[in-house]
């Protein structure tokens, strides 16, 4: 039954693809190349390399390598900053009162608006790009961590206190694990935001990467190539989210178990 249900949901994908193919072929618009042409270009540009390199071409490494490095370093850097700051703020009601208005203001500023500022302040390339990613993705991580640290069960904290757990034990063994489900929700949101901001940063402040390739192909009227970039980014987002869910399911197995039984 599950297989049939899954197939029942999936049938729409090929239908849409075929319809797209038929319509774009009939229309013969240069802006809308048929999916087959897009896929052919994607294969040519990125996936016709030797098997020893997982079929990746030099072009794939040149486009994806810097982008992925930016995405992950930006995301991980933000995760460390966001979780550390979030735990500190969440554990201290007074600090939370002080910084809350600043956080609310900061998250209301659309991060792409800051790209010109970062470009003026920092060097074109990695520093400005990283700053854009960090500033854009820190909010869901920070807010979720604050919430997680603030809502640790009172009885868990009292248990920790009565059994004389040290401050470090309380942090690592009680507060952090307790906040982890919310932290992970923030990290997942941040990961998809990081992909968007990575592209934006590369379009506005880049000389390489998939975002830069997107801009370049658009300016050179290489529409199948441009569509290839868009599809690749979509697939990338999907894969990143799936991979993250896989990790989350492992790390938070206790959380799912505990929720199912109570």
């Amino acid at each position, binding site marked *: 039954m599950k297989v049939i249900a899954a197939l029942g949901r999936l049938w729409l994908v090929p239908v849409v693809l075929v319809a797209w193919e038929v319509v774009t072929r009939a229309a013969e618009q240069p802006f809308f190349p048929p999916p087959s042409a897009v896929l052919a270009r994607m294969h040519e540009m990125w996936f016709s390399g030797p098997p020893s390199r997982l079929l990746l071409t030099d072009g794939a490494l040149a486009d994806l390598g810097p982008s992925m490095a930016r995405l992950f370093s930006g995301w991980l850097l933000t995760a460390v900053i966001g979780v550390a700051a979030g735990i500190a703020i969440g554990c201290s009601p007074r600090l939370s009162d002080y910084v809350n208005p600043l956080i609310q203001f900061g998250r209301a500023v659309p991060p792409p608006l800051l790209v010109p500022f970062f470009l003026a302040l920092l060097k074109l390339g990695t520093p400005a790009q990283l700053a854009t990613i960090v500033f854009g993705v820190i909010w869901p991580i920070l807010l979720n961590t604050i919430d997680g640290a603030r809502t640790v*069960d009172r*009885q868990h904290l009292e248990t920790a*206190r*009565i*059994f004389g757990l040290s401050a470090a034990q309380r942090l690592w*063994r009680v507060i952090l*694990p307790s906040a982890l489900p919310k932290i992970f929700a923030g990290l997942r949101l941040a990961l998809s935001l990081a992909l968007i901001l990575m592209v934006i940063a590369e379009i506005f402040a880049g000389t390489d990467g998939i975002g830069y390739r997107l801009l370049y192909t658009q300016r050179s009227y290489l529409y199948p190539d441009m569509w290839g970039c868009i599809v690749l980014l979509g697939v990338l987002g999907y894969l990143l989210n799936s991979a993250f869910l896989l990790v989350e399911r492992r790390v938070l197995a*206790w959380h799912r*178990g*505990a929720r199912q039984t109570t």
Partner: protein
Amino acid sequence: MLKITDLVHSYGPHRVLGGVSLSVAEGELVSVVGPSGCGKSTLLRSVAGLIRPSGGRITLGGQPVERTPDDLAIVFQDYSRSLFPWMSAANNVALPLRRKGLDRKQRREAAMAALDQVGLADAGNKYPWEMSGGMQQRVSIARALAYRPSLLLMDEPFGSVDAQTREDLEDLVLNVCAHHGMTILLITHDIDESVYVGDRVVVLTKSPTVVAADLVIDLGRIRDQIATRQLDAFVRLRAEVGRLVRGGGTGHTTESTSVLEKK
């Protein structure tokens, strides 16, 4: 061991404790019983140093309790919010032992020994949410045992489990109490239970709470779920405590001073 003198506590204008005095001697199991809302938990939280009472004195081993005392353990009613669901049973038991200066292996051994004593020798690697309520409460008790506290506080420890499990856990506590010479202050709203497990029963009044009576339960240390409850002395004591909890006087039990000593 534990001495509480004229303990007073108010939440805003509402006075909960109106001068509670009681003491617990080394190795004694004292059950505290009272009507609901009488400040039993406030009393316990004051002893644990979780709240600062408005007035009065609490000393543990001669030392005044100002913060959470070092060698105090607790078993809460709500085991699911007291055990950490992200740790296995053995790790839950072992976690507080680091401050006792034990290394990882010793902590693990102590935890397994404690789990063995509560009948969970094979459950060390299970997570709390993989266990029944009774098993989880056993893990809580094991954690307290392994910690070797000078005073163990129990806050309605059997309030959330079924009747059969409750009896098992009562006997478990009686056993370990006798075996380790543990000093226990047990809070309950269950009159029958207070008499069954206690060496003494302290009955509290409605708030503002004072001690209504302090009864010695002279039923010997060995108790049996069926036989003890059939004893005339048990039935009399249970009735006596019941009357006191409902706010009545000590009534006609004064003639039975051989089993009941009014302090």
